């Protein structure tokens, strides 16, 4: 390369390297500091949370906890892999508490040996036995139902069942997210528990044929598509209604639909939980127990209910006015552990019937 063409680029890169040099010293310092971050996080007055739950849903509650107890809450949020991280970190894991948005992960964490049992009179008194691990490894903190959002204009009926979703009368009228999404897997697992694998396969195929579009996106997009007229029914979790009503752009979507709680007349609606587990090697065990007890307190339960539109797990806490307006929740009493045990089968069925390929497969 000749010097005269190199010179301008060389000068340019020279300036860049100068700038890089100015960056490197503080960068190196930051790396050195944060390398010890894991150690520093062991100091007292703290509690370390590994969370599968989205930060915006738990931040307000954790802030209240810190305000009341002076205990600082450190969080790593990730959508997956935290159990594997705890397994790899072993006895030196800084995690005190694991928060999940779903029951399967709690059961998986227990099986992986990264949790420890907790016998707490406070919690045992507050949370119903069906909503916690019999050995005390995990506890539900909120409940949410998987319901049908139906067009107010185009759907006349006010009751529905999951089974009915496979009825050809809904052909081309249903929207849903990916069958491999954890919320749908739990629902399909509950169908296997009630009807067996073969019948569920037929049902799932029928549901697939009734879809208006390829399963994709999120629960809210289903409701959006109902409002736009692409489908008449969308499957989604209850708390999205609360979230859409708060969002000025999405309020019209929420206003266009009514919530139908499937199987309310028979076994009850499929319900999942969010929950917490105490880490096996929790370095701040006492603080972690305080945090779990706080999360199960009426105060925290009402924040959950108010800001997230979820159902409380303790009788003493009141659901928000909005949640109350949906009526009494009749939950399918199927044990969570049974659903967890059938997840693998459910996931395989989704592949087998090519659910995610959509209606024309």
């Amino acid at each position, binding site marked *: 390369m000749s010097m005269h063409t190199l010179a301008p680029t*060389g000068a340019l890169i020279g300036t860049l390297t100068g700038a890089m040099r100015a960056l490197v010293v503080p960068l190196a310092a930051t790396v050195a500091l944060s390398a010890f971050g894991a150690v520093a996080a062991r100091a007292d007055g703290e509690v370390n949370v590994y969370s599968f739950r989205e930060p915006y849903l738990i931040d307000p509650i954790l802030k209240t906890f810190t305000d009341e107890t002076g205990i600082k809450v450190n969080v790593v949020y990730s959508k997956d*892999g935290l159990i594997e991280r705890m397994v790899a970190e072993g006895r030196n894991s800084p995690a005190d508490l694991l928060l999940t948005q779903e029951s399967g992960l709690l059961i998986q964490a227990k099986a992986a040996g990264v949790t420890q049992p907790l016998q707490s009179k406070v919690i045992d008194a507050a949370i119903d036995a069906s909503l916690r691990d019999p050995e005390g490894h995990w506890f539900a903190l909120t409940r949410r139902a998987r319901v049908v959002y139906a067009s107010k204009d185009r759907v006349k009926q006010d009751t529905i069942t999951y089974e009915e979703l496979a009825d050809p009368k809904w052909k081309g009228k249903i929207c849903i997210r990916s069958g491999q999404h954890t919320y749908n897997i739990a629902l399909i697992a509950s169908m296997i528990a009630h009807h067996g694998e073969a019948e569920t396969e037929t049902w799932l195929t029928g549901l697939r044929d009734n879809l208006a579009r390829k399963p994709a996106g999120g629960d809210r997009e289903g409701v959006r598509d109902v409002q736009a007229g692409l489908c008449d029914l969308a499957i989604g979790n209850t708390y999205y209604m609360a979230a859409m009503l708060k969002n000025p752009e999405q309020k019209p979507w929420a206003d266009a639909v009514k919530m139908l709680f499937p199987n309310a007349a028979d076994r009850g609606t499929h319900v999942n939980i969010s929950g917490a587990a105490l880490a096996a090697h929790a370095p701040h065990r006492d603080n972690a127990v305080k945090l779990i007890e706080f999360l199960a307190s009426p105060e925290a339960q009402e924040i959950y209910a108010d800001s997230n539109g979820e159902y409380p797990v303790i009788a003493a806490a009141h659901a928000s006015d909005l949640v109350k307006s949906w009526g009494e929740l009749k939950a399918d009493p199927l044990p969570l552990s049974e659903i967890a045990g059938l997840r693998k089968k459910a996931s395989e069925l989704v*592949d087998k019937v090519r659910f995610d390929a959509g209606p024309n497969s």
Partner: protein
Amino acid sequence: MVVAMSLTPQASPPAEPHGFDLVHRLRLGRGLSHAPGWSLTAGLVLAVIGLPVLAVLYLAATATQNDWPHLLSSVLPVALRETLLLGIGASLVALVAGTGAAWLVTMYRFPGRSVLDRLLVLPLAIPTYIAAYCYSELLDYAGPVQTGLRHLFGWQTAGDYWFPSVRSLGGAAFIMAAVLYPYVYLAARASFVLQSVCALEVARTLGRTSMGAFWSVALPLARPALAAGVALVAMETMNDLGAVQHLGVETLSASIYATWLQRSNLGGAAQIATVALGLIVLLLAVERIARGGAKVHHTTGRYRAIPFQDIEGWRGYAAAIICALPFVAGFVVPFLLLVKLAATHASAALEGGFLKAAWNSLMLAALAAGFAVALGLLLSYAPRAARTGFTRAAAHFSGFGYALPGAVLAIGVLIPLAALDNSIDALARDLLGVSTGLILSGSVAALVYAYIIRFLAVARGGIEAELERISPNLDAAARALGASAASALWRVHLPLLIPALGAAGLLVFVDALKELPATLLLRPFDFETLATHVYAFAAVEQIESGALGALTIVVAGLVPLIVLHNAIAGGRAGSSGS
């Protein structure tokens, strides 16, 4: 300086006589092959870089749950087909768009040429998951485009008209190509710019048209660079999860996740990841073949301006429109949507340590760029210093991390780092009675490590392509004058490579700004980057509130991209003087 330049095409079959190869070996092979230090260095770098991939292979080998009957009957046929079609589709579109635009911009003068030249690299600043979100937002049934069409034509339902679904294989291939084609554009541009004016003029003198010269001279000469660019596009489509999940495409990445998370079979997921790695080996082999073993070295350091050809009239505007299309699709559309969203949702995004997140992103990206370039240079140079199969293999295999989905790579990073930390801790407990806890796990160092593994392929591609242009005669001369391989690297190659190194570093920087899945899992407590900041909103289906963060990722990537462009296009002889 005398204005002239020549090329030495070596061993490009079948025209090259074998004798040339022999001379080449006699002249260079012996003298340079004894460099165990370089083999050792390459081996060490490969070992450190390859550890997480090995961890994934280990998980695959030790899996206890056997899902293969299910995988073979219901998963892999679909996943392989969709992965291949997506990879091929996106690669082809990127190849045509990137090469076509680069040729027009390099050879012709037309309205808006110099502006378009700069703009064409910008889509690289848009993360694929953001592009997927923006396009589905615009083109879904409920989006403004279809709603507008329904109003316009009075259609009532989806059955009244046909509209291509963006949530499809084709849609995903288009979106991926729209934001990834700059890999090809940059490679093609750099290659065309540095091509011999003589070669092109000879072609013209011998009666080729300008298009003929393109097909018969410029394109074959650019083949290695194009292959490297396309390989990056293909690998990026393979490791992507966010965009394909959003668009409902069932690639191998998606089945890796379903196997891991829904069927609780991490080992099985690692086995599918191994299949993905196999595909990459295949892809790299194809890339080698595409390069055809041809090596093009400059034997002189002299250039002369290739005179632009003017395209006038409507053809000029047509050329401008052709060049503008990829830029509009890959940048303007998503960017404008983000601006609109950010303008209406800024307040929420500015809360919660946004500036800290921006700083963290810049810091990580700079560190990753620095390390990836240094290691990329070592690995690319090692086969020159020690001409062994091992050093060549080390260079090839170092890029594998790029093919793994980010979260799988992150698991692979977790395992060896935590094992190391726990060993140190156990030793300290035994010997000193104190616990050191985890030193590397959950630190910024772990993140930088993951980034290097992920983006080394990006850095190495550009560096290697440029290094190959440097004639081995220079090495021979340096060595004959008594320089060691290391000293030759420092005094001869490094100065020649500085633009390429800068370009590689900037490319890694831009890519690292966008990294999400590995960052999510490996980060320290309360540590946000711009990408995780945006994801926190996306996870609760409110990505619009993260629009400002997304916009910041894009804007932070723009400056390096423009500098990068100058580093590459600046090499065009005559453009600085004219």
